[in-house]
């Protein structure tokens, strides 16, 4: 969630009222934003040195509250101190509408462009800073770090239309980037900004493309190289009167939202919002921009009242919804319908469910009638595998073993090499983008976690007896998700002696609890129908030779090998840095389902 810092005194002045921190916190809470910090209560010297700020967390879908202007406006509307403004475009006074021509080549890299002109804007330092900061916030959030949308703003009086949005090979684009003095071409620019802390992270969006997007004016002055940087020539300053905004994008919906947000937030400082004509015949995007008309939709009174548990009249609902910026009139045709004009600021409204939520917020979430309709009778049931796991957990603890909960993710070597196991490439689920080597794959065995737990508990007295009942994961190409979990049980003991008979004894105990008889190998092999378990020596490189046994189980007329136990091979101990002998047991619980 974005956090926006606003000047406290300026905001309270806008709201026409002083608030204590608690009162303002309460207002935010009711509206659905969150007061993170009031810096006047901070003890940090850097906070005390500045005028007090309110740091406010904004929900990720409220693009209309990403700057001071938006927060003040929405709160004033909520407090019924003003109506939400209506934004309209006006025709240019003495001249023809500005034109932006989009060339077909742009389809290769960044096909969409929109724009608007703000006439006779009055910047102050605060407004100017807020204008720049809003663009940064939109770039970071809605525009997904400029990949989907990027904004360029220019002093219209330094450039001359018609404008042209093109895509050209980087070597052919030459200009002086913003706040630089040297002219460079597209390729040089990439090198120049490669190490730049701020801009460096956006270069990848176009770097390897054969053509770069670029906007020229009638004199072939470069306005910008979206989504990286503007030209220095047309930069806006505090003195700028007429602002030309261009917005390039991959996403048609978002390009309009961004344009609408900039207009809604800053048109208040300008004399007029002037549309531009966009020529884009190759993709049927020829139009006038921006479209500032509210979106007309309908909401059902029944629905709004039923879900909120309220019973207000269409008129009362309309009044409450205007606190959220909606212009609502009960439909003349149908008593159950409200005609809702959704303002351009409310891009988050998709469905009447959103209107319903605004109704509940305007009414007050915490004033809603808290009545639980006692209609549902239900019968609970535990997940069978969890019930089985709980039996094993409780019996293991009752046998004197301590339950641990290591992580599911581990490194490749912990899961394979350190256990002397080989990765056949068909077993373990591997991760594409872990932040650290600790998390390379989903464990296929509980052993790495147990051994790491012992390692971190070396200060503990021996013998150490621990267990875990949890899931491991495997690739399984038969499944929709190409993988499956398997519930395993595992235990480990570290002591001065191997503890082999301890893990063996625990196995026997758990089998007894699972109604599994101890069989001789001969009997078990001879007759599949004879239910029970036995163990037989197995050669497994995880364990000391001659000290490992496979756990065999006859169940449901089938013979299964469900796991293995034994004394860990000294090389395994060395890898996990364990000072004493360790024995482990691990088996699959799913067969007992």
């Amino acid at each position: 969630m974005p956090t926006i810092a606003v000047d406290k005194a300026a905001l309270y002045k806008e709201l026409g009222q002083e608030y204590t921190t608690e009162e303002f916190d309460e207002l935010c809470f009711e509206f659905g934003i969150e007061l993170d910090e009031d810096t006047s209560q901070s003890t940090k010297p850097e906070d005390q040195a500045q005028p007090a700020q309110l740091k406010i967390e904004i929900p990720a879908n409220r693009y209309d509250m990403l700057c001071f202007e938006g927060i003040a406006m929405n709160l004033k509307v909520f407090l019924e101190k003003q109506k939400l403004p209506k934004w309209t475009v006006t025709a240019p006074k003495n001249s023809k509408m500005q034109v932006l021509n989009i060339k077909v080549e742009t389809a290769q890299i960044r096909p969409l462009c929109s724009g608007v002109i703000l006439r006779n804007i009055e910047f102050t330092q605060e407004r100017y800073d807020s204008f720049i900061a809003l663009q940064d916030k939109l770039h970071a959030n809605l525009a997904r770090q400029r990949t989907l949308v990027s904004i360029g703003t220019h002093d219209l009086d330094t450039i001359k239309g018609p404008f042209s949005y093109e895509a050209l090979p980087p070597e052919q684009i030459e200009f002086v980037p913003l706040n630089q003095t040297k002219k460079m071409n597209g390729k040089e620019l990439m090198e120049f900004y490669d190490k730049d802390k701020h801009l460096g992270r956006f270069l990848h969006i176009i770097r390897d493309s054969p053509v770069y997007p670029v906007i020229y004016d009638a004199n072939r002055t470069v306005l910008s190289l979206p989504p990286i940087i503007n030209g220095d020539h047309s930069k806006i300053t505090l003195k700028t009167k007429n602002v030309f905004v261009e917005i390039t994008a991959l996403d048609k919906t978002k390009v309009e939202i961004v344009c609408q947000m900039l207009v809604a937030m800053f048109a208040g400082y300008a004399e007029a919002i002037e549309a531009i004509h966009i020529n884009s015949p190759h993709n049927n995007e020829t139009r006038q921009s921006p479209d500032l008309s509210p979106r007309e939709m309908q909401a059902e009174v029944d629905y709004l009242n039923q879900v909120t548990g309220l019973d207000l009249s269409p008129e009362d609902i309309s009044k409450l919804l205007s606190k959220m910026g909606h212009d609502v009139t009960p439909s003349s045709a149908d008593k159950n319908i409200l005609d809702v004009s959704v303002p351009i600021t409310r891009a988050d409204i998709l469905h009447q469910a959103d209107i319903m939520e605004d109704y509940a917020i305007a009414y007050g979430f915490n004033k809603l009638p808290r009545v639980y309709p006692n209609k549902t009778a239900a019968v609970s049931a535990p997940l069978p595998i969890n019930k089985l796991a709980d039996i094993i957990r409780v019996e293991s603890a009752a046998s004197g073993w301590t339950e641990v909960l290591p992580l599911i993710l581990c490194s490749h070597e912990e899961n394979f090499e350190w256990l002397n196991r080989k990765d056949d490439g068909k077993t373990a689920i591997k991760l594409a983008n872990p932040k650290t080597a600790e998390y390379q794959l989903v464990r296929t065995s509980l052993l790495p976690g147990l051994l790491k737990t012992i390692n971190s508990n070396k200060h503990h007295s021996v013998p150490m007896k621990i267990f875990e009942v949890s899931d491991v994961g495997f690739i399984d190409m038969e499944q929709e998700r190409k993988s499956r979990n398997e519930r395993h049980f595992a235990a480990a003991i570290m002591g001065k002696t191997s503890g082999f008979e301890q893990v063996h004894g625990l196995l026997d105990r758990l089998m007894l609890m699972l109604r599994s008889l101890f069989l001789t190998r001969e009997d078990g092999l001879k007759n599949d129908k004879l239910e029970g378990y036995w163990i037989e020596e197995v050669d497994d490189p995880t364990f000391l030779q001659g000290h490992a046994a496979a756990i065999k189980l006859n169940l449901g007329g089938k013979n299964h090998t469900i796991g293995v136990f034994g004394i860990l091979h000294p090389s395994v101990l060395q890898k996990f840095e364990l000072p004493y002998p360790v024995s482990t047991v691990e088996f699959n619980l799913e067969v007992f389902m």
Partner: protein
Amino acid sequence: MPGTRGPVPVPLETQNRNLTQDILDLLDTKETLQTNEDFPAIPQAEIKAALDRLASRSMVEYKSINSDKVVLTSESEGIVENGSHEFKVWKAVKEAGKVSIKELPTIVGAQTASVGMGNGYKNKWIKKDGDSIVLLVTEEPKDTTREMLQGIQETQSVSDAKLLAELKKKKLATVTKVITYTVTKGPKYSKEMPVEHTDLTAEMLTSGAWETANFKPYNFAALGANQNAGALHPLNKVRQEFRNIFFSQGFVEMPTGHFVDTGFWNFDALFVPQQHPARDMQDTFFVSDPPKADKPRLDPANEATMDRMESGSKRLFATVESEKREKKPRDFEKYWNDVKKVHQEGAFGSIGYRYQYQEDESLRLVLRTHTTAVSTWALHRLAEDPRPARYFSIDRVFRNETVDATHLAEFHQIEGVIADFGLTLGGLQRFLEDFFRNMGIENLRFKPAYNPYTEPSMEIFGFHKGLKRWLEIGNSGMFRPEMLEPMGLPRDMRVYGFGLSLERPTMMKYGVSNIRELLGHKVDLNWIREQPAVRFDKD
């Protein structure tokens, strides 16, 4: 020695001597002992142990005496041995007849030269003669400093407080506290240590020896024997408490047995747009191998599990109508297409997000970022026969987070879902009030919030009595029509969803401030063992 039972003598062997016996022996010949005089070589702690042992059996009585002892430093011990500094200087001058001041330190040492020269002048034993020293007294003078220190060494005391302070200042003596004991016979004194029984044994019962046996006194101040107990993990103890709350409310536990899920189930079906930040590489673990999922389809194993769990409810609540109601088989192809449509173009009364939806993105495999992916699956299944239902799960979820005190790449999500007709938002608040009251949290407040798949969305705040402030304790809401209607659920069926992490309330309950001390391999085994049982109703 564990397992030792029956009579055992109780000697206290120290430096190969039986100190308790020595004390008893000496008391036989002497009415009162002074430990500092009678056992000067034995350290005080050992004396005390022996005396306590005897006193606890009323064989002796003792009083402790605290006193100060003056001890010479190594410098003053040197003086006692070899004479004072001034004496050494006198002697050196006597032997040489005349000593240059410059050379004096090389003859007697620097310290002796500087101290001894000054005192020598003061005592009028020597005098300066130009750059050298010559004798004033030729007969060997009386070394009073040495004699004084000798006296202190013998008596270990200094009667003149002023002198003592001066000696301490000159670092010639230090004072230490000493504890000595005055020992007399006790009421049960005897010359021999009696044979004692540490415990009542079966043999003593048989022989009747218990009647006359002399039992070793029991130490009531000590803890009992360590149980070497096994233990369940505290996080799982809290988990069980939550499961019990869910079971008491008629919830069915969902099959969460797959860490890997698809972009479709984890995000798209939940109406999370494909460019949502949660789908970033920064936030979600993507799976590189296996490379790609299949499109959604029936999942026979989990279907069977759900059928089995819901059979109780079916048996109990079946009516003539419900038996007649026809099941509407799920159409996965339609679901797939409707989800795409509601994102891309809008549908079901929604204008949608209006962007280019990528089917490949739906088939990407991820480590589930929430168990809501499983709730989605369960709700889609419910559309076959829409009826009131309550589902829950508590299982592991994964976030590609940078690990710190409050964030791990893995944690447990508690999730509850209630589907019914005509549910209201206030009803969810009421339900949550009851749910959290079971954990001892009352007075909930709800904050409007944003979540792509719920509308309305409410953050749940509870007043923590211990911390005396409002804490965010969970999230909740009603699932969006854009999520439910593509499943084929009827428009008037509404679904509550709520969730919280298992770790947060557990950390509050057990006072843990770092999540790494709770989950993962770094957790201390002793900590696991020592955490009390969870009683939500009691604490």
